[in-house]
């Protein structure tokens, strides 16, 4: 395996991990808000969060370039802090996070929806503050959903092509597995590399899915105990 390929694999994994790290806290908070609260502008928030699911990833990438370009407010502020977003792995991580966020929010929200709000009320009557109730009741009961959402976010980030390609421009050292596959595919005689990377991508995604299933199952047994008759 060539160095380029190894760096593509590592970069992809880094993108996946960064996407989860960047989205987990705001994603869980958003999911909770959407599941438990009514507030003005809720539909707008939902639309913005879920938009990357339906618009072409290239378009998402284009918007990110616009937002983070150094001529724009946010981009220039970050540039003053020495953070370059466009054409760097930072920007790619942000793109991956934006692409993964809707899947995380969706899965976690439905996990929250499945927690009986009366259980939370019961915890409150026992002296539990709302924040504590969230950590003691809501979060543990939705744990399998949070794990599943994180894995989906990770896998989405790992496999993204359009948005990351726009932000990184596919320059050397800034290529994830998908970008590396595309790069090799464009030049003849690189069939073996394409095949190898495709296989690795498949294995990584499958492993992520298996891990999430196992985590969800084990947390269920640990937390809910074996069901017995009686």
């Amino acid at each position: 395996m060539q160095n380029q390929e190894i760096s593509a694999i590592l970069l992809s994994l880094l993108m996946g991990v960064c996407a989860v790290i960047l989205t987990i806290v705001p994603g869980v908070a958003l999911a909770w808000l959407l599941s438990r609260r009514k507030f003005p502008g809720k539909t707008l928030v939902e639309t913005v969060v879920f938009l990357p699911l339906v618009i072409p990833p290239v378009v998402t990438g284009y918007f990110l370039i616009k937002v983070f370009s150094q001529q724009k407010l946010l981009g220039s502020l970050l540039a003053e802090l020495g953070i370059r977003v466009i054409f760097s792995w930072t920007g790619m991580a942000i793109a991956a996070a934006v692409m993964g966020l809707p899947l995380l929010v969706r899965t976690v929200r439905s996990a929250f929806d499945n927690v009986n709000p009366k259980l939370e009320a019961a915890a409150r009557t026992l002296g539990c503050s709302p924040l504590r109730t969230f950590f003691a009741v809501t979060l543990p009961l939705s744990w399998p959903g949070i794990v599943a959402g994180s894995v989906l976010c990770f896998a989405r980030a790992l496999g993204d092509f359009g948005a990351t390609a726009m932000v990184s421009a596919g320059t050397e050292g800034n290529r994830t597995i998908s970008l590396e596959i595309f790069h090799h595919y464009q030049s003849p005689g690189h069939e073996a590399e394409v095949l190898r990377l495709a296989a690795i991508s498949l294995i990584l995604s499958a492993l992520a899915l298996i891990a999430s299933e196992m985590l969800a199952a084990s947390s269920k047994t640990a937390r809910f105990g074996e069901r017995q008759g009686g």
Partner: protein
Amino acid sequence: MALEMDFRFRRGDFSLEAALSSREKVTGLVGPSGSGKTTILMSLIGILRPQSGYIRILGESELFCAERGISVPIEKRRLGVVFQENLLFPHLNVMDNLLFGYRLTPAAQRRLEPDEIYDLLDLRRLLRRGAGSLSGGEQRRVAIGRALLASPSMLLLDEPLTGLDATLRDRILAYLLRLKSELSIPMVYVSHSFADITAICDRVALIEVEVDERHHKHSKVSGLKKPHAAFADLSGVVRAGPIETIIEAVVERVDKTAGYAQVRSGPLELFVTDTSGSPGQKCFVTIGGEDIILSLGELPRLSSRNVWRGRVLDLESYQERTIVSVDVGRQIRTVLTVESARELELKPGSEVHVIVKANSLRAVMVGG
């Protein structure tokens, strides 16, 4: 400790006026389904916020006052709630469920200790079990224990006997009676069952419902009454049921060949046909009010094993019947037709014999 409330709640075409002041140990809250029992309960807990009025527990701070903008958050109200659905935390085992509120209660405010509750509700052998593995009756006991261990200033019970079969119902009712006699926590008991209310409540507040010409529903809580008087007003609206007495007892002797067991509750000795217990084991005996015969004067020889001497405490009329409370060492309630009661010329203080066949007594063995 007393509960005082006077509030109005309105939502859509439903309105509720709830005025009540009670110093009883167990206050019943009774009304047909849809009358607003749950609304009152939710307002007490703090989940719903009435539009006007107040809710206070004397001796504690005011829970709610619309005028002064006071609404104590749910977690600071210190009301123990046993929900109809039990609502045990499925991710925790029985012990962690029981100690959930206890651990959050500052040590200085704890009035009940886990050991006390484990014994009172026979929970010890359940402690390590997962909440999801419990039977309906076990779940209910854990829910009651969990609420008590948060050392509440009042216990709210929402239909605690609904959905249980007859044996379980007897058993949970017996536990509730035990709480009533051994703890000093007042209770509000929400139910639509006559039998449950008469078995445990001291006074009952009725919720009456009127539907106006625009199909708007108005519910109103009327003043406190003695359970039977309350039900006389509500007959037909509320599910009637048997009048019965539940007595906690200890098995003394089991005679499997003769097919009976002798159990004792203080000075009272009872014969039951359940021989599944063993000497020293605790049990609860339910005596149906309709299964009892009262007799005046000397007795002929009888086949019945349970013959007790007693004194009439109280007579109440309920529909076409008379409910007679008799002290036989334990207080038991019997049901007679109005005519029989008149013919026997019963009055408080009358000396009577109380006769029950052993196979009319339902015994529930506990622990073992």
